[in-house]
């Protein structure tokens, strides 16, 4: 089981990357930021290799399926998409600041997946309901969406922290000066939410198509379906209040955090409610 070894190393790499991002924030030296990014990239690549190995391994075991089939595999993939989308944003915006708030989420997901006693990291065979070509597209788009919302959540947190410290006024000096300015944060929140919204929409739709073929109905009011719709509506409310009522800044940040709460509940909380997606229960 080589890939599990790689994955546990990757968990530590993400933690180290988070610590370096923190160093950068405290000392203000870009050296630590570059090191942190380097570690995050290394972790991303190593994790991709581990996922491919796990995929191959499942074929060796005679089951042959993408590593996206149970809670453990989805958590690992979630961490991977968070880092992927974060690094793309970092590269596009040339700003390393949100790493401090986003990379630890990926680390926590990895750590939770390997430490939680009720999550098994074994490769399990696919039950008939999951044997579908829609599995990959459904899971990948949903988690891309979740990851983008995670970034928005990270930016929302920074916004509120900075807002609390400065009272909403931009100050170049002091600790708050090291954080990105309010407008950049607001734009980042908005852009990651639009990205997440498109992915979530496609995720819900691929799920509907799959349900149409597997269960005979594109919508069954299963708790996970309903919660994904709740999440979608919360972000729809956010976007409408921005477009039409001109909400910006603090209100966006708060809504981004509420939205992320819905994402988490859709992903994890729902598993404690009875429903059709129960194979995700550990």
């Amino acid at each position: 089981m080589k890939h599990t070894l790689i994955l546990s190393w990757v968990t530590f790499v993400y933690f180290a990357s988070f610590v370096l991002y923190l160093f950068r924030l405290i000392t203000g030296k870009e050296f630590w930021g570059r090191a942190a990014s380097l570690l995050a990239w290394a972790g991303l690549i190593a994790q991709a290799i581990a996922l491919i190995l796990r995929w191959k391994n499942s074929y060796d075991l005679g089951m042959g399926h993408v590593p996206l089939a149970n809670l453990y595999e989805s958590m690992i993939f979630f961490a991977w998409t968070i880092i992927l989308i974060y690094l793309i944003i970092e590269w596009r915006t040339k700003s390393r600041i949100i790493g401090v708030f986003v990379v630890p989420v990926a680390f926590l997901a990895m750590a939770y997946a390997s430490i939680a006693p009720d999550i098994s990291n074994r490769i399990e065979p696919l039950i008939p309901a999951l044997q579908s070509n829609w599995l990959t597209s459904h899971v990948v788009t949903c988690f891309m969406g979740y990851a983008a919302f995670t970034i928005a959540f990270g930016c929302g947190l920074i916004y509120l922290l900075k807002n609390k410290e400065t009272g909403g006024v931009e100050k170049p000096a002091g600790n708050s000066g090291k954080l990105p300015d309010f407008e950049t944060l607001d734009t980042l929140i908005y852009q990651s939410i639009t990205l997440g919204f498109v992915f979530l929409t496609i995720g819900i739709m691929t799920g509907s198509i799959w349900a149409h073929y597997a269960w005979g109905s594109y919508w069954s009011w299963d708790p996970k379906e309903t919660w994904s719709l709740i999440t979608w509506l919360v972000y729809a409310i956010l976007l409408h209040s921005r477009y039409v009522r001109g909400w910006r800044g603090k209100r966006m940040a708060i809504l981004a955090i509420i939205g992320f709460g819905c994402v988490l509940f859709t992903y994890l909380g729902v598993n404690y409610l009875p429903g059709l997606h129960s194979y995700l229960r550990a």
Partner: protein
Amino acid sequence: MPIEKHALWSFFSSVKLTITLLVLIVLLFIAGTFIPSPDVVETFANHLSPGARKVFLFFCLSDLYHSWLFYILLTLLSLNLMICSLNCFPAIWRQYNAPHFPEPEGIFDNLPQGRIITADQESGKIKPIVESCLKKNYGPISKIEELRGHFFYAQRGRFSLFGVYIIHLSVLIMIAGAIIGSVFGLEADINIKEGESVNVANMTKGNGLYHLDFSIRCDKFTVEFYKDGTPKTYRSDLSFIKNGQVRRQATLLVNHPITFEGLRFYQSTYGMAPEIKAIVTYTFAGEKGGEMSLAAGDTFSLPQSRARGFVLRVEENIMRIGPAVKLRIVSQKKDVQFWVFQNLDQIVDANPGLLTKMPMFNPGLFQPFVFSLNRLEQTYFTGLHLVYDPGVPLVAIGGLLMVAGLIIVFFIPYQRLWVFIKPQDAKISIRIAGRSNRNDGQLQKKIDYLCRRIDEEIKA
């Protein structure tokens, strides 16, 4: 327009209403996921006083997703969506057809350094350069000459103004599809035992029966498991029979529904039928006779004689000596009953002379036939779910439109650019400015790029 001033109209055209409705729907959904399943609610309702029970059931709290409360919210939302769209349309239309000139007031004031290019050439040389640069990046452009100087205008993504309409239309189409599906659609379940044909299904909602104008036979049901016991495959081999003819034979798997005469069939469940099948063979005067698959209560005929056979019992382990069937054979002369044991040889070895002492245990009692029991087979029934949903195409179209609309709204901004060429002293200044309905940063980058291009072209 007088209609716009109507109180009801303005109520339905407010975005506050939209947000309120969306929040209410979210709350209803949250309640819906936490309210336990209908039967638990029913037991709870029975504990309430008759008055409270009535109120409780009136609000249909057992099934919020199909309650009148939810339907009202959905109707209000649809009305709100339609009226909002109608209301905003003139403004959007004006925006779509907005004149290119004059440019928005003050757009060329306080431009940053890089946005003003100065050149020594005469304007007759500069204009074609600017024009070709703009055309290369933006396609058709328009121009005007004024006292102040020359103006160019270019735009991109104008149709994205209607992206919002595509999204909202898609929501309405999906709601329409869902309504059509729930009004004209059909959902039913059928359980078919292996070897049996059925043409009646139980409606999933309510207790009605649905009569098919064909019948479905389950030829075989197979369940396979992985080494660790996890189910691997559920497979039903089905025959669709109409007017006594097999019209189609197909294998039904989970995730691979079968469509027959407009109905879609899904592998939904399976189970063990209560009876067990006995695979019985016989010989006639020492020659091979035939093989039959029999369950308790079945009758069979023997082609070699006019006798009728009846299966009285099928036992998995009788008297702890293994599987056996009890048969009764009736002919014009005889009426005999006897047991057929699967392990007859061993039984006879252990009890020599048993067959003469106990004729009941002799499988050759009805001469010249000799029966033997090959094996017992567990029979399965397959559970099919059958669906007819005429709303699906609409929902699918709605879904596609929504994704298209979202991509247009989020990722294709409506960008407008103005270029102002002005003779200034002996030189010529070129100013570039723009407006975008979203993502201003992207536009600024584009303008920077354009400025660099024009500058390079002029110098070259």
